[in-house]
């Protein structure tokens, strides 16, 4: 799933390890989510959005909206 995690992380000057520590997950997890190789569960997605104090749809791009935007 496409997301803005890398951009949001960069604006705060956090490394992947910093973000992983704040989310209490491994750095591998952050990397996999950022690169779209892994879609986080809903609880983890909410945790990420809350950490950046943003609505979840401002962090993750809905696949259905993305496809309709392409049309």
């Amino acid at each position, binding site marked *: 799933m496409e997301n803005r995690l890398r951009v949001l992380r960069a604006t705060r000057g956090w490394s992947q390890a910093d973000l992983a520590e704040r989310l209490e*997950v*491994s750095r591998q*997890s952050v*990397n*996999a*989510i950022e690169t779209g*190789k*892994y879609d*986080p569960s809903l609880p983890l997605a909410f945790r990420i959005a809350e950490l950046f104090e943003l609505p979840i749809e401002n962090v993750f791009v809905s696949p259905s909206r993305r496809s309709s935007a392409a049309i």
Partner: protein
Amino acid sequence: MARSSAWKRYNVRVIWLSLLYCAFLLPAVYGFKHGLVPGWAAYPVAILPALPIIGIFGALGRYLVEEQDEYVRMLIVRQILWASGFTLSIATVWGFLDNFRLVGHADGYWLIAIWFLGLGLGGIVNRLTLGASVRC
């Protein structure tokens, strides 16, 4: 990758179970070899070394329950699926070859070794497809 406390607990359990396996296996082998195991005790003594191995499967299941990192959990579940598929495939092929007398009969416990080998194979597949793996 920094290891979680769940991973450390899993490792401690596996070490203890491995020691227990040796403690059960060595006397059993010695006992059967020298005819020291009475008939009534043969089945329990033969089964004892299997119990810690079953315990290792349980420890892996426990680790999956305790691990808080969902991505790591997914990696391990994928490894377990690869290990199981790999083992069952080999058992199926060997079974037919054995049935047609094309290979010798193999002891069933080799399946355990093949399953753990399959875990390693699953780790390689994870590394190749996702760029990440967990050693278990």
